[in-house]
């Protein structure tokens, strides 16, 4: 489905992603784990194309020079030079880190904005689907995005990403700053989304334990390089992974 080949990103002279090749097959949940500054967000931005946008902006302002090399393939077609808006149209939808809700818009408006690419029927159905998936949002329909709690905001953010009818959903740190209970609720919903919508999901997270049960395949990033990869069971048995990402020694 979505594949990155030898992806390299430089921020000026700093190497943010070093020769990363990852692959996400149809109907798979792929996990990307790594500490701060491992390059998770950079990878997500590169996959969704936002990096091209940042690159252009920095270029115009004469700031950092960002170099991108390698290739991103969607269904075996290169989309490396495709603008982020067109990538979203093709089905790669990013749910960004720190949620980035439209704070001045209500929950329902947030969802509607996300549904720009969907047809009217699809939008209606997806709104209903999101409300079913996250029943907590039904009561909050008309509350402004800025007044929601962290967990509710994340639900809206995921819902908004779903509204764009993704084929590949990129979730950048969806569990950031949430309570363990909320984390497990969200993770269950992510699994449900994958099963019901038959889409691929790439989820990045710092702490692997809550996410691990649902991933099919995982990559572990360290300082911009993929140091380990494998199926859930392979990684689960690896003592290094256990120590570093599960807090088990």
């Amino acid at each position, binding site marked *: 489905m979505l594949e990155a*080949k*030898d992806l390299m990103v*430089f921020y000026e*002279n700093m190497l943010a992603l070093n020769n990363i090749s990852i692959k996400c097959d149809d109907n798979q949940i792929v996990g990307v784990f790594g500490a701060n500054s491992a390059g998770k967000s950079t990878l997500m931005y590169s996959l969704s194309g936002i990096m091209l946008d940042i690159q252009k902006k920095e270029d*115009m302002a*004469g700031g950092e*020079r960002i170099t991108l090399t390698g*290739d991103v393939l969607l269904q075996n077609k290169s989309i*490396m030079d495709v603008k982020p808006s067109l990538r979203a149209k093709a089905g790669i939808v990013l749910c960004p880190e720190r949620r980035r809700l439209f704070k001045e818009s209500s929950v329902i408006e947030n969802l509607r904005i996300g549904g720009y690419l969907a047809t009217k029927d699809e939008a209606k159905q997806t709104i209903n689907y999101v409300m079913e998936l996250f029943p907590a949002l039904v009561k909050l329909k008309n509350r402004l995005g800025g007044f929601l709690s962290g967990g509710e905001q994340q639900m809206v953010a995921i819902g908004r990403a779903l509204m764009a009818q993704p084929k590949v959903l990129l979730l950048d740190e969806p569990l950031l700053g949430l309570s363990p209970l909320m984390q497990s609720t969200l993770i269950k919903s992510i699994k449900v989304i994958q099963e019901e919508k038959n889409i691929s999901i790439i989820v990045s997270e710092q702490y692997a334990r809550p996410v691990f049960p649902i991933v099919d395949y995982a990559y572990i990033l360290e300082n911009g390089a993929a140091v380990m990869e494998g199926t859930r069971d392979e990684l689960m048995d690896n003592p290094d992974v256990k120590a570093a990402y599960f807090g088990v020694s």
Partner: protein
Amino acid sequence: MSTQELRKERIDRGIKVRSDGLYALMSLRELSYLTLPRFILIAGMISLPFLMPGMYWQRVISIVCIYAVLALSFDFLSHYVGLVSLGGAFFIGTGGYVAGILNTYYGVPPVLTVPLAAAIGGIFCTLMLLPCLPLKGVYFAIVTLMYPLFMARIIEAFDIFGGTDGIVGIDSFSSAFVEQYFVVCMVLIFLFGLRRFVTTDRGLIFTAIMDNDQAVKASGINITKYKALAVFIASSMGCMAGACLTHIYMWSGISQFALDFSILPIAATVIGGAGTLVGPILGCLILVPVSELLRDFGTLRIVFYASILVGFILFRSDGIMVFIQRKYEQFERWTKI
């Protein structure tokens, strides 16, 4: 596959690294890496009045310096304190009127009116802006834009300080030489003073207020006090420039509250390079003479002027100074990935 084999990288020059953190300069030639640019600026500014052909262009240089001080205060306020002020005209007008009043009504000589105008005008402007200090961003900008209009209308409506005619018969500087060197020195002193000031502990607090005022409050610092101090510094500079303007034209009037004094410094800052402090001066040195040269085109002047500005914002939004600085401190080369 769109794999590039090469990428361009930027590397700090060795001399830059040695003069920046290590202080390992080994010869006068290496020392000149630091001193030469400053020397060129100072020598250039001081020799400017000599190089100008005739009275008219010498007068232009004085005006450039007045705008430069104003642009300096704008750059300081907006990029080191985070208060985007459109009140350049307010500072100029206040300083101009204070100097005019002191000179004509109380007979104070120009030597004293200029510093007095800076002090009195600075206090007056700070007091006037005090209620607006909690405002941020565009709100502060709008309010400060209102002040010069407000002052001009008050003077017009109440017919005080000469009303629409302004205050006439103000003493000029004792000679053209004194006038030019006074403003040139004013620019240089303010420039190097501010450059030093923003690196002190107080300057650090200003920058912190710009970045995150809540965190500064949480550190137990009274941000209103510091913002007021910053406004005082900036407005004193503006008022001093205004006082000089009054003595140069031997007149102070409502047109000193004109919008030009608010807009041109901003344009100069954009062109010269925001946040560099030298940039705005460079911007003024380009913009003011250009607008003089364009005088032949009459009202079309603004069209050219605006085109230059739009072009700069679109294609060189970092400003000339940032560009030059980067070329001076870093070199580029192609490397294999």
